C-alpha cells in the first residue's frame, strides 16, 4: 500500500519537464471568505487576481486586494455568480488564463468547466469527465464498487422497477433504509424508512420533492447507518498520475446535515481504519483519474466499519483544518496542480502534526431556529493567540446580505493535542464578539463544551438530539 515515489520538484519553465508555466492571471468566480482565501493564495504566488462581484457585493473590502474587479450582475446568485457567460466574458476581457470556482456556485458544474476550457481558460478543478463521474452519486457508487471501496448496501444505481421489485430490493438491503435523491447534495433530498409498510408512500413523496428541488425524480436507496460518524479524506492529485491523501477530517458534529465543526485527526477511528480509509479514498481518486483537490466522504458505523458516500470534486469549506495539520497550502497546491505542475509532496513526506479544529460561524440566531440574520456588523472583535487562524471576509462596518449563505467566518485552532485544541477553541469562542448580529458563536460554545464531544463519543444525530 502506498507508493515510493522519488522525483524532484521542478518549478521552472523547463521544456524538458513538459509542464506549462504557472497562470498569469486567475479569475475568482466566487465571493466572500473563499474569494478572499483564493485571492491571498494568488498574491503569494505572484499571480494576478481578478474578482467578480454582484452589485450587492460592490463595497466588499476584499475586492480592493484584487488586481481587477468586474461587476457581473445584480444581487441574486442566478443573476450574477451563476451567470456562466458573464464570468467567462469577464475572464476574457481581463486576460485571465484560469478560473477558480471556489466552492458552491459553479464549482461542481461540469458544463461550466467544459465551457471554460473550450474558451482556452483553465478551470481549476478536475476534468469535466471526472466531475460528472463522481458528481452523480449513482455512478460514483458504481465506480467505488469496481475499485473495491466499501459502499453502503443499496440499490445499485437509480431505483427502478414496479412496486414489487422495489420492495424486493429493499428487503435485500434491510431496514431501516435511507431514500436519497440521485441529483441531491448537501444533505438535501434524504428520507429514512423504518420498515416496509412506509416504503412505497415515502418513495412517492421523495420523487416529488426531488423533482422540485433538483429537477430529477431519480432516487436510490441504501441501508441506513445508525449513529454514524462522518469522516472524509482530503485528496490532492496532479496531472502526472500522482495522487496523495492529506489525512482525514472528522465532520460528525452537524445539524441537519450541515457541518458545524470539523477536526483532524479523527478520534472516532483507530489507526488501522484510518490507514484503510485513506487508502480507499486514494484508490477511488485514481480510478476516476482525478486531478487537483477533492474530498472523499465516508460514514463510519459503531463497529468502525466505513462506507463510501460521495466525492466532492472541489475545494471544501473546511480545508484549513487539513492545512494546519499538514503544513500544506491546499489552495496553492490546487493551483499548481491545475497549472500542470507535479505535486511538491508525496505520501511519504505528508505528516500529520498536532490537532486542528474548525468552527463554522454563521450569521444565524440559534434561539429562533437558526434563522439567518442580515444587517450591519457594528462590533467585530476576533480572537487571537498561538495557533489561532481566522478566515473571514467580514469586519466592523460590513453589511451582511440576505442574498447569500450565512457563513461569515471560520475559526480554526491548531494545538499539540485534541484536549488542548478544544480548550483553545473554547477560549477563542469566549473572546469572539460580533454585534448586534446574532451568530452561532454561543451555540458552538455550548456544543464543544459537551462531555460527549470531549470524549469523541458523538454521531451525526448528536446535535439535534441534545440541543
Amino acid at each position, binding site marked *: 500500500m502506498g507508493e515510493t515515489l522519488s522525483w524532484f520538484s521542478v518549478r521552472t519553465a523547463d521544456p524538458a519537464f513538459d509542464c506549462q508555466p504557472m497562470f498569469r492571471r486567475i479569475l475568482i468566480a466566487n465571493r466572500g471568505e473563499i474569494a478572499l482565501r483564493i485571492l491571498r493564495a494568488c498574491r503569494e504566488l505572484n499571480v494576478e487576481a481578478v474578482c467578480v462581484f454582484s*452589485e*450587492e457585493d*460592490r*463595497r466588499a473590502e476584499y475586492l480592493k486586494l484584487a488586481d481587477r474587479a*468586474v*461587476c*457581473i*450582475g*445584480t*444581487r441574486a446568485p442566478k443573476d*450574477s455568480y451563476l451567470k456562466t*457567460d*458573464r*464570468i*467567462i*466574458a*469577464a475572464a*476574457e*476581457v*481581463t486576460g485571465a488564463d484560469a478560473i477558480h470556482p471556489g466552492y458552491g456556485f459553479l464549482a461542481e458544474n461540469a458544463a461550466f468547466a467544459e465551457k471554460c476550457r473550450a*474558451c482556452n481558460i483553465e478551470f481549476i478543478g478536475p476534468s469535466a469527465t471526472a466531475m460528472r463521474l463522481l458528481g452523480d452519486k449513482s455512478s460514483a457508487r458504481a465506480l467505488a464498487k469496481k475499485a473495491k471501496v466499501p459502499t453502503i448496501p443499496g440499490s445499485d444505481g437509480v431505483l427502478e422497477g414496479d412496486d414489487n421489485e422495489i420492495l424486493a430490493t429493499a428487503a435485500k438491503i434491510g431496514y431501516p433504509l435511507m431514500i436519497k435523491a440521485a441529483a441531491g447534495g448537501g444533505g438535501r433530498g434524504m428520507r429514512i424508512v423504518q420498515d416496509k409498510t412506509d416504503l412505497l408512500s415515502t418513495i412517492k413523496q421523495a420523487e416529488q420533492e426531488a423533482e422540485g428541488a433538483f429537477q430529477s425524480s431519480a432516487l436510490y436507496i441504501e441501508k441506513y447507518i445508525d449513529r454514524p460518524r462522518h469522516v472524509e479524506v482530503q485528496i490532492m492529485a496532479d496531472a502526472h498520475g500522482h495522487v496523495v491523501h492529506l489525512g482525514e477530517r472528522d465532520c460528525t458534529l452537524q445539524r441537519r446535515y450541515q457541518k458545524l465543526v470539523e477536526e483532524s485527526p479523527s478520534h472516532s477511528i483507530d489507526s488501522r481504519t484510518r490507514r484503510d480509509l485513506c487508502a480507499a479514498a486514494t484508490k477511488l481518486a485514481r480510478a476516476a483519474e482525478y486531478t487537483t483537490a477533492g474530498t472523499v466522504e465516508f460514514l463510519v458505523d459503531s463497529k468502525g466499519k466505513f462506507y463510501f458516500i460521495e466525492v466532492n470534486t472541489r475545494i471544501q469549506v473546511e480545508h484549513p483544518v487539513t492545512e494546519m495539520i499538514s503544513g500544506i497550502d491546499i489552495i496553492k497546491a490546487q493551483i499548481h496542480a491545475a497549472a500542470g505542475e507535479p505535486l511538491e509532496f508525496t505520501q511519504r513526506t505528508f505528516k500529520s502534526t498536532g490537532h486542528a479544529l474548525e468552527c463554522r460561524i454563521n450569521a444565524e440566531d440559534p434561539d429562533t431556529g437558526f434563522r439567518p440574520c442580515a444587517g450591519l456588523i457594528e462590533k467585530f472583535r476576533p480572537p487571537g493567540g498561538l495557533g489561532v487562524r481566522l478566515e473571514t471576509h467580514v469586519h466592523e462596518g460590513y453589511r451582511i446580505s440576505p442574498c447569500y449563505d450565512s457563513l461569515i467566518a471560520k475559526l480554526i485552532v491548531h494545538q499539540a493535542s485534541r484536549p488542548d485544541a478544544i480548550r483553545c477553541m473554547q477560549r477563542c469562542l469566549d473572546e469572539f464578539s460580533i454585534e448586534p448580529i446574532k451568530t452561532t458563536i454561543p451555540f458552538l460554545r455550548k456544543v464543544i463544551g459537551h462531555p460527549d464531544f470531549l470524549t469523541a463519543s458523538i454521531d451525526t444525530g448528536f446535535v439535534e438530539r441534545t440541543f
Partner: protein
Amino acid sequence: MLDIDRIRKLVDMMVTNDLVELSLRDGDVEVNLRRPTAVAEVMPVVNGAPTMIQSVPDAAAVLAPEGSVGTEDLKLTAIHSPMVGSFYAAADPESAPFIHVGSRVNIDTVVCIVEAMKVFNEIKAEMSGTIEEILVKNGEAVEYGQPLFSVRCD
C-alpha cells in the same frame, strides 16, 4: 404644465422616502426623476390625484452608479451594459459607428455591440431620446451595469 415648485416637492419627497426613481404622468406631461445611489430598491409610492407610475429597473435602464446623473438634469439618463464583454461602436471595423453624439434613438435602435466569447451582441437603446455623450472607448472592456451612453430622454 411643468411647474418647478411641484418638481422640487417631488424631489423632496423622493429624498425623504429614499426613493431612487419616480415617474409621474399628468395629462400630457411626463416627469422622470432618478437619484444616483447604490440602493437597488424601488419603493411603492401611495399618493393623491396624479397617476404615479412606478418605474422598475430593467436590463438596459439599470440604476446609474454614483455621480453619473444629477437630480438637476431631470431628463438625463444612461444606457447601461446588460452584460460583460468588449464594447464596439460599430458592427465591424469597416463600418461607421451605429450612433454618435446627437443621434436620436428609440427603443429598438441598436446603439453598439458588446462582444463576449466570440458572440457579437447588439445592444438596443430601450429608451427614446438623444445621445448626449459616449462614455466608453471602442474595444474597451465593460462590466455589467456600466454606463455606455448618456441620453437625454424625450
